[in-house]
C-alpha cells in the first residue's frame, strides 16, 4: 500500500489498469475508473510499467499524427507469423528496439530512477490455442523490477 510520501517529488499518470498486485499472476482490468471507486493515479515503477505496456501494445502507425510511436509485435501476431518460440523472441526483440528508443527519448535525467527504463527481457512464453502469453521482466535504473504478463490474442 502506497503512502502520500511515495508521491512527493514525483509526477503521476492516471492508471489504465486496475487490480495490480505486487506479486503473483492476476488478471488486470483495463479501465480508467471503476463503478465502485474513482480512478487511480500511479507513479514510480508502476508508471514505468504502464508506459512500457502502452508503447508495446500500440500498433506502430495507428496514431496517425505520431507515426513513430508503438511497436511491430502486434502486427506480426495478427499476420500469423509467430508460430514458434524463436519467432516470438525474434519479433519481441525487433519491436523492443523502437520501444526502447521511444521510452528513453521521453525521459529526463532528473526523473526518479525507478521511473526510468533500463531494459526489458522476455523471460518465458506460453502458447495456448488462441493466445501467446508473454512473460516480460521490466528493469528500472533503480534496479527494481516488475513482471508483466501479456496475453496476446492470435485470433484475427
Amino acid at each position, binding site marked *: 500500500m502506497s503512502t502520500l510520501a511515495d508521491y512527493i517529488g514525483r509526477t503521476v499518470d492516471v492508471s*489504465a489498469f486496475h487490480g495490480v498486485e505486487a506479486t503473483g499472476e492476476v488478471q488486470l482490468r483495463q479501465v480508467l475508473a471503476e463503478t465502485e471507486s474513482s480512478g487511480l493515479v500511479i507513479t514510480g515503477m508502476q508508471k514505468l510499467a504502464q508506459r512500457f505496456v502502452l508503447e508495446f501494445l500500440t500498433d506502430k502507425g495507428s496514431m*496517425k499524427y505520431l507515426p513513430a510511436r508503438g511497436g511491430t509485435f502486434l502486427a506480426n501476431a495478427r499476420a500469423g507469423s509467430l508460430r514458434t518460440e524463436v519467432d516470438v523472441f525474434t519479433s519481441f526483440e525487433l519491436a523492443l528496439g523502437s520501444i526502447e528508443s521511444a521510452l528513453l527519448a521521453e525521459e529526463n535525467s532528473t526523473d526518479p530512477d525507478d521511473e526510468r527504463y533500463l531494459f526489458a527481457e522476455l523471460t518465458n512464453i506460453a502458447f495456448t490455442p488462441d493466445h501467446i502469453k508473454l512473460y516480460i521482466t521490466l528493469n528500472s535504473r533503480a534496479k527494481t523490477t516488475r513482471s508483466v504478463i501479456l496475453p496476446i490474442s492470435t485470433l484475427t
Partner: protein
Amino acid sequence: MGITVSKLDELATTDVTSALALVTQLVQEKNPDLDVRRGVLHDLVLYFSAILAAAKDTEIARVRSSMSLKAINADPTLADTDLVDAVLSNFRVTRKVGAKATGQITIVLDKLLPTTIVAGARFTTLGQVFITERAFAARTDAAFVVSTDDVVIAEVGAGTYSFTISVIAENTGASDTVLRGTAFAVAIPPAHLSRAFAAADFVQGTSIETNQEFIARFESGIAAKTWSNRSTITALIIDQAQFEDIVGTSIVGMGDAEMFRDQHSLLPISYGGRTDVYVRSQALPLSTTKTVTATLVATVENGGVWQFSVARDDVPGFYEVARVALASAAATDTGYEVTTTTRSFDISGTGFKPDIETAQEAAFSSFQTATVQFLDTNTSTAALTINQSTQSYSVTFRGMPLISEIQEFLDSRSVRNPAGDVLVRGAVPCFLTVNFSLRKRSGAADPNVNAIRLAVAAAVNKLEFPGELHASLISDAIQDNLDSSVAIAKIDLLGRILRPDGTKRIIRDNDVLDIPDEPALGVSGRTVAFLLDPQNIGITIETVDAPTVI
C-alpha cells in the same frame, strides 16, 4: 474547400505535433505533478486535444487565407466563397450571381385550333431544358383574346399555323447556345404540333462566378473608374449596370501596332490621342432580324441581284449577314446567298465623332455602314426594272451587341478623354469550328455529346482576347464530361477570321490556333476573339475493339 475541417484525418502532421507540443507544455506548466509524456494523460487527453486544437488552428488559417487578398490571389480555389464575397465587397466588387437564359419559342401547328401550353411545359434542345413560367392560351382569332397571357395563332402558309411563347431556362448558367431557328423537342406536345423552334436568338444565361473569375475581375473593381489606363477604362465601362456582363475588352492605343488612326497627318507618325476599344460584349454574336427594302441592281441567269443599304444606326457594328430571305418565307428557309458586303462609314451629324478615315477603321463600330448584295433565285425578274424595282426581305445580321451604347457612353462629355477620341468596335471575330473523336471501349456507354458541346463552347467563349487557342483547353473541357472508358482523339481546330477590311482568313491546326499577327489589317491577339457556337462542334464517336487481356 470549405472553412470547416470535416474530418480529423485531413490535418497536417506537423500541425498536430506542434499543437501537441504546445498543449503538453501548457498542461505541464499548469500541473507540474502530472506526467504528460506517455500514458493515459498523454494518449487519451493531450493527444486528442492537440488534434482538435490543430483542427481549429487549421480553420483559423483558412479563415485568414480567405480574408487575405494576398492569399486569395495566390489560390482563389482555397477561399470560402462567402468570405471572398465579403472581402471583395470592400472594393465595390460583387460576385455575378448568374442568370437563366430566356427566349421565345414558335410553336407550329398543322391545323388551326385553340391550343393551351401549360405553365411548366418543358422544351428541350441541345440537352438544355426550358420551361414556361405561365400558361399560354393560343387563340384562333384576335377577337377571342381575353387576357394578356393569350396569344393569337397566325397562318404561316402551306397549311401551317404558328404562335410564339416565352420560356426560361430551367437552370441558372451559361446558355449561349440557342440561336434563331434552333429546333426544340416538346415534352408533352400539343395536338397537331408540327414543330417548335427558337423564334429569335435567346438571351444568354450567365454562370455564377467562380472565385477565380471573381478575382480576375477584382482588378477592375479596385481600379478607379476613370479614363486613365487600360485597367481603369475597363473598370469605367463594366461599372455601368448595362455593361457589367461584358466578357472582355482590349484597348489599343498609341504605340500599338494595330493603331493607325493616330497617324492621320502628313507625316506617317503616331501623334497619340486615339483609342480603340475592342469589345466582346457577350459569348456569341447576337442575331438581329430586320425587314429591309432591297432594289434590283442586276439580273443574272438564275435570278436577280438585289441590293440594300445598312445605315450606321440600323445594326451598329454588325459582322455579317447571316440570312436574307423573302419577308414571307418560313423561318426555316435558309435564304439567299450574299454575294458582296461593301463596308463604309458615316460620321456625319452634330456632336463629337471619332477620327475615322477608312472603312477598315470603322469596321464593327457604330459608325460602320454597308451595302449588301445578294442573289434572289426565286423572284422572277422578267417584269422588273433594274435600279427601280424594290422588294421587302427579312435580313438577319450577326454582331456584338452594345457597341453603340458603349460608344455613346464613352463619348459623353463627362466621361470622354479630353485629350483624344475613342472608337468602340466589336472584337474581330474568329468563327470557330471544332471537330474531335471520342474513342470508347466496346460496350461502354455513349458520352453525353450535348453536355460536351456546351462545356467546350463555354470554355472557349469565356476567353477574352487570348491570342491563341490551345487544344488542351478543349480536351480539359471534354474530359470533365467523360468517364475513364472514353478517350479524346483527333482534335481539329478551324477558324475563320473576318478581317475589318472585309476579307477572310482561314486558320487551322490540331494543337494550337494562333491568331496571325496582321496589325495593318486590324488582326492580332489584341483584337481577335474566338467565337464557338456549340452547333459548330463536331463529335465523332468511335468504338475501339481492343483485344481482351483479362
